[in-house]
């Protein structure tokens, strides 16, 4: 067992903070908490956590403001917690440097999974050229994709979308990031049709089995973006 990972929870609600502390301690995380944005930023400087859980609804500073300040020097993962239905804040947080998000009320096991993915991405930037994921075999060098052993022909755009999602395996990729990575910075005109392209890609990735469909491989984060995961 490697040394325990340090988590900082910046959350103003004491009950949520305590519940998370209990759950995370059980998973062998070392936990510290802060109840405001200012305190959170301060504690982060002394404590040097491996990962931060940041509530977006803090009383003193907006979550976005805290994130902005943290990101000036803090490079490890930040996962935002939000009770807000509107996606603007989530998208702004993700585009502003958060690694992932969960919406309250969230399941603790989902949060733990998101934390593991974020930490894994941060620990080692995986530079693999071929992936085998369930029924999918993807070869990034030869630009080949196999579903259940047989080749599937993808357009250049579909292939690029798949590649970007694959590089961020398990992490949410916002519409904006995807557009920028696939079509370059001037990609506004594709925004309208992004879902159409992804729909087409998923259609090609559908399997015969009922156990896994293209929709479950490339998951839709409604109003936010996509997440590739098995």
């Amino acid at each position, binding site marked *: 067992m490697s040394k325990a990972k340090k988590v900082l929870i910046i959350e103003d*609600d004491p*009950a*949520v903070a*305590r*519940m*998370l502390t*209990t*759950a995370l301690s059980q998973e062998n995380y070392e936990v510290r908490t802060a109840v405001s944005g200012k305190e959170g930023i301060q504690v982060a400087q002394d404590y040097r956590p491996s990962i931060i859980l940041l509530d977006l*609804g803090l009383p003193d500073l907006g979550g976005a403001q805290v994130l902005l300040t943290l990101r000036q020097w803090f490079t490890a993962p930040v996962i935002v917690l939000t*009770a*807000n*239905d*509107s*996606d603007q804040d989530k998208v702004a947080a993700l585009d502003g440097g958060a690694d992932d998000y969960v919406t*309250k*009320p*969230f*399941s*603790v*096991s989902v949060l733990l999974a998101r934390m593991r993915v974020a930490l894994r991405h941060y620990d080692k930037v995986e530079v693999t050229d071929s992936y085998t994921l369930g029924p999918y075999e993807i070869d990034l060098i030869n630009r080949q994709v196999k579903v259940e052993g047989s080749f599937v*022909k*993808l*357009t*250049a*755009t579909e292939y690029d979308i798949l590649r970007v999602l694959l590089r961020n395996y398990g992490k949410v990729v916002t519409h904006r990031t995807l557009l920028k990575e696939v079509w370059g910075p001037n990609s506004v005109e594709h*925004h*309208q*049709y*992004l*879902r*159409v*392209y*992804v*729909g*087409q890609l*998923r*259609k090609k990735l559908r399997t015969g089995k009922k156990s896994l*469909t*293209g*929709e*479950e491989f490339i*998951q*839709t984060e*409604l*109003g936010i973006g996509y997440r590739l995961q098995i």
Partner: protein
Amino acid sequence: MLKAYLSSLVFLFLTAFINYLLIPYLGYRATGFGFLVGVLPVAVGCGLGPALLFATLSALLWDYFFIPPQFTFSIQNSEDVMMNLTYFVVALVTGILGSRIQSHEKTLKAREDKANRNALLEESEKLHQTLLNSVSHELRTPLTTILGIVNHLDFVSKSPETSLVVHDLKVSAERLNQTVTNLLDMSRISSGALRLNQSVIDLSDFIRTCVARADYMLENHHVTILDPKNAIYVKGDEKILETAFANLLSNAARYSPEGSEIRIDLSASTSASNEFAAVKITNSGANIPAGDEEIIFGKFYSTSGGVGLGLGLVIVREIVALHRGTVSAKTTDGFTTFNVLLPIEELPDQMKVNLQVV
């Protein structure tokens, strides 16, 4: 319009009368200035037409009643002819310029009104959003704790009795969460503060996303999706539309026997010469009482012994209406079908090319 002309006439006769009384003191020539002064308020107050009427009639009146020989249109003095003509031209120009000022002012005022209204609307939208966000935060934060602890207890509880109680707690908390979600959805939709974040959606892909997301509700049913012959696209807000279909899928699962089939039939249909994308969700059982096909979409309708506030279908209808579509329900031969119609979105040719395999 008529009122403007009438006021112009009334004002003209009033001015003429006063001028007429002033002739002995000012002489007939100076009274011309009296008429000239009258043109401006008419133009500014009543607009171009009434001002031109005033200018023309006043020139004639002046000539007829004031300029010697009085009570004829003929004029003795050539100087007076020049004056009358000059008066007429100056009055016309004054009328035109004055009416321009008026119309310009009107535009400015209309623009200001609109700006004010928009600012007000935006303000109330923002206020509503802030209120909803804080209500959402206040309701969901305690639910996060409850559900988190319940799941933890569920995981560690050993005795059968405790796990039963914990299970009840979990189901109740989840139901509460669903109610909170429905209430917040409803209030957001009915507030008018809802802005659709529209994009083009591949219907068959989107329905699969909805089904995948509703997985936990559908695990005791077989879901079959029948795709359309050709891909169908609609324009909409994916997140809001998903709320509508999640409600329909949850109903289909709740009101049909475990293990039965839920069929989702996607097709293009033409109604009233418009092309619609049709999503038909059919489940067995749960007959809608004949005559209730409309009422079920009303607020607080709930079947006897049903759970929930009866907001689910209201939300569905409102969301579909926001997307310029319709939803209807029917029971035949023990099968209940909800039919959602949404306007079809045509892809531009460039997109069709882009989607071809290279």
